[in-house]
């Protein structure tokens, strides 16, 4: 299987958020931290599909743009089909964008996962004198990280009404695995992001904008050196 993967050019999934960010960085031609200033829909004419222009204020440029200058992303209107609202005016994002193609169109790396939200993180507590730095919300990036799949034995019954989990039997678990997952890679291992979506995982998957930008710039230097 590994040989096939190599032949296909498909990457093995990243094992950490850092690796995931690094892959996104490698694929992106434009990276910046910025704020959405305007969204302009341009209807197609003469059979054209239409374009949506998203204007950003670039607060910190990493690659392919300049800090302080606006950056206009032109997306294929088909991505906005069905009334999808991909960006909101005013929201702050860490953008990993592909280099525009010959059509002038582009989009975030990894779908909208390449538009990483930036959030405020200071508690609104009386007496607090200073704000914490904004953070990059990496929960969706974390969802791209490799995670082994494992099933507990089916006979282990969760009593939903009592909200308890009955004890597991390791051998039974193994049987369940061999019976049920012929294609899956099976590991009995918990994953750091196993609490995906709950509050405790949020803090663990938020990193200051400054540290992420610094990391991306250091990678940029490395890649430039390689070039």
């Amino acid at each position, binding site marked *: *299987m590994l040989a*096939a*993967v190599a*032949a*296909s*050019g*498909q990457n093995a*999934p990243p094992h950490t958020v850092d690796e995931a960010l690094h*892959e996104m960085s490698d*694929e992106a*031609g434009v990276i910046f931290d910025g704020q959405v200033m305007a969204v302009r829909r341009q209807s197609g004419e003469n*059979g*054209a*599909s*239409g374009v949506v222009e998203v204007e950003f204020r670039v607060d910190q440029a990493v690659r392919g743009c300049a800090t302080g200058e606006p950056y206009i992303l032109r997306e*294929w209107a*088909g991505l906005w*089909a069905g*009334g999808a609202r991909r960006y909101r005016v*005013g929201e702050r994002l860490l953008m990993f*964008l*592909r*280099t525009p*193609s*010959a*059509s*002038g*169109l*582009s*989009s975030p*790396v990894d*779908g909208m996962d390449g538009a990483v939200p930036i959030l*405020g993180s*200071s*508690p*609104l507590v009386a007496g*607090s*004198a200073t*704000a*914490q730095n904004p953070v990059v919300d990496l*929960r*969706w990036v974390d*969802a791209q990280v490799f995670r082994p*799949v494992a*099933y507990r034995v*089916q006979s282990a*019954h969760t*009593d*939903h009404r009592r909200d308890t989990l009955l004890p597991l039997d390791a051998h039974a678990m193994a049987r369940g695995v061999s*019976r049920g*997952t*012929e294609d*899956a*890679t099976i590991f009995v291992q*918990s994953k750091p992001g*196993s*609490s*995906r*979506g*709950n509050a405790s995982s949020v803090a663990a998957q938020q990193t200051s904008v400054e540290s992420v930008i610094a990391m991306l710039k250091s990678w940029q230097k490395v890649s430039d050196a390689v070039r």
Partner: protein
Amino acid sequence: MLCVDERPGQRLRWAMMLAFCWLAAGVHLWAGGPRWVTGQPYFTTDGVPIVWYTDHPLYFTDPGDLSSYVNHAAADALVAAAANVWNVPTSSLVLGYGGQLDEHVSGANVYPTSSGLVFPIDVESTNYLAKQIAIIYDYDGSVTDLLLGSGASEPSSCRQNAVTESVDSIVPAGYIQHAVLVLNGRCTGPAPEQQLQMQYQLMRAFGRVLGLGWSQTNDNVFTGSPQPTYMQAMNWPVMHPIDIICGPYTYQCMPQPFVLRADDISALDGLYFISQGEAPAGKADTLLNANRIYGRVLFPTWQGMRGVNVLARRWAQYTDTSKEEDWYTASYVTGSLYRRTAPTAVTGSDTSMTGSMGSTYGYYEGYYDLTRIPMLPGDWQNVFLETEPINPLYTGQYAVGPYIDNTVEPSGSNSTLDAEVLPSYRVSEMWLSTNGPASACNPGNSGTETAPVGAASSGWWAGLLCGNGRTAWSSLAIKGGRIFTVEVAAEDEHGFATRAKAEPVIGLWQMSDPTGTLPTLGSETEPFNSPATGVTSLTTETAQPVQLRMAIADERGDGRPDYNYQARVLYADSISPANVGAAGGVVTITGMGFRPGNTVTVNGVPATVTNWTTNTITASVPPLHDLGSSTGIVADVAVNDLVTGGVAVMSQALTYGSPAPTLNLVSGPSGTVAAGQRAAIPFAVQALAADGVTPIAGESIAFTASPGSVTFGACGLSSCTLSTDASGTASTTITPLTTGSVTLTATGSSGVVTISFTAANEVRSVVAYSPVEYIAAGAVVSWAPAVNLADSLGFTAGVTVSWTPVAGLIAVSPGQSAANGMGVAQTAATAGPLAAGAQAVARACAWVTVCTNFAAQGVDASDLRLVIVSGTGQSVAANSTLTPVVLQVVDTANDPVAGATVAVHQTISAWQALCPVRGRCPVPPVEGSSESSMVSDASGLITVAPIQISGAAESTNIVAATGTQGFISLAIQKHP
């Protein structure tokens, strides 16, 4: 017919349940999780899931090969496999192959224009009647790159870009007419897993194209918590929002990935429903061997609660509880048919397709619809309904349910309902609530657009956005030239800041603005733009005084009993004093919304804040020099909240006085100064330039005194004009000539300095404690003469006293000593031998000129006398001790005489009782005697220790004699 029962033994309780049921035949149903829902005004229908305009949409494939590994036939087979998954018996949908496109689509015939890409004509949406779904085989990835950007077709991006889907025609009638699917040929290859992965992704894309939304069912399979069972994975829907990435191919991360789950079928059937008895050939009624449960999740206020995931779990008839399934079969998010965004006063209305999604019909707000819950073997089954929140990751492109941009946590905790559902075709309506939800919708007086309520005087207030479209209206007077900040923190029903409830937006108008307009003074329509958690912030400037109208609303036009908020206006209204000198000073800022930790700056330069209340801040503003100015300015004063980023600015509010050259006092006499004497402290002034730093040299300074009269030492006159030196200083000594109040003035072109003091005559004295020391003629005596110093204008401690012999045989040492804290100084003197009547004189002088004499004088032996000082008359017990007897040598004037020799004779006689009245008193025997000679000390004293017999009763007789006439005798005794 009652279709549900409630089990009293359940720990999880139900707040409310209402149930009824009917047979489903002929009833128009909406079910599953629709991706889109119609609504006014864009659509002509309301609250209807958007589906294909035909139950038989056809897809048309590219005539070319997909890649060098997948030729056209193989690609068609792959597409067919992915499409056919969605052809299920209980759904009216038939997704079929329609034929080929007219041409192989590639970068060669897809070309860009200024308004987007132009596809071949038969791929365009205008061709929907002929070809509903165009499937492009993007052989070299060029189309994918054109659509998504350079490199998008790279194999490394295949997890995201193997299939690009676009539903590019949804008409106002509420139907899908056309879609395009682009298969990236670079994601295929020699490994069969690559084709299977593309098939998997295409299958999910077909689901989206058909109008299905993502689903959250058995989400622990995704989260891993709790660890899932195999059956939970088998019921994890194909339309899960986010894949698990357990390796290069995500289809391998779930068992039987190409089989729709019951939840997928329920959603599909909800969109493409077959009513009872209406199944065409090859199809079956949707509810054949299945149940449908729909209803509402409600707040206690009867408002529907949106965004709650309702899940169904089954339990076969006639089995014990161990047979309850521990996985969910179907789910639905409440409110999926309800209006997703509604107009607000702040955001206005959105008549586009996006802004029109969903019905405004209140019934749908908490509505759920589990369209098809397949039956377990038997003629009936139990179904448990449970509630849960939506995973916060499921937003935007992964959104599950009606809240697209952000999930909203249900109010209260999860709950469970046991429903006994009867046979096939049974439809039940069940209303339920979560456990302990927010129970009241009492926003208080939150004002109206025409009658806003005055903002709280503290600048802080709490509120509730309850009821759809609820907007809170406040009013506030703001001065011109002010910048202020309005902040709204979204809170849950427990008062904790959160991003998972209301999404506050803020709008500002002038009170005089017509109602119904969008904000005229400013608005913030992006929630949570503040650095603080859950806080939306709007900072606005006013040029002129204005009476504000202020609106707070939910960005989506939502309103619920659990949409609490905390609002604050950070506003600095005035400053007092409004004028300070160039040195700065202490000011008080009055306003609202202040809190400890807020900082103050003046033209950006920090001030030192010493006190906060909600309405005042006391601060010490920096000197003008720190503001980088050498001339008087009017400065901006800002109050900053570093936590939220809020700021309040009073523009041009604080006036700094113009700096000018100054004449400053350096030193000068004060208090009481001795008249006639030069004051210890000179009168000195310094002239400085306007910058407060540079000295002015050569400036003429006139020194004058009035009232009072002085001599200025610099010129020896009663007035004096001096020039400042290089340090800008002019200085002179002062000698007051008269007593009384004296005012001195130094006048120059840079200013005037005035000082005052009191001049008084000074009286100093030196007084000997013992002016004459009497000593026996011919004797040599040492003693410690002492003097007391007094000064009417000052302290005497430390003043030096000089001791010098003046006449006769006297010596003093040391020659100088300092007065102690009591003003007493002393030395040691030795005088003699002196003849009777002769004197030896010495002198003590302080302050050089203030002196006193003291003397030693010889006393003739005939003038010496003895007096008893103490110890006479003792009569103690025999076992006691006689204490010493103190005698003093004095002269005839009773002055103590030092240096006199005293002869002492003592005898001890036995104790004797009183003598008889008659007859001779017997003479007691002498039991001891002694003789000694002693010399009187400086005070003329001698101390005689009585001789005595220890423990015996006795009498001691003491006889002392000095000179020629000094004699004394006494007797003391110890009695039995």
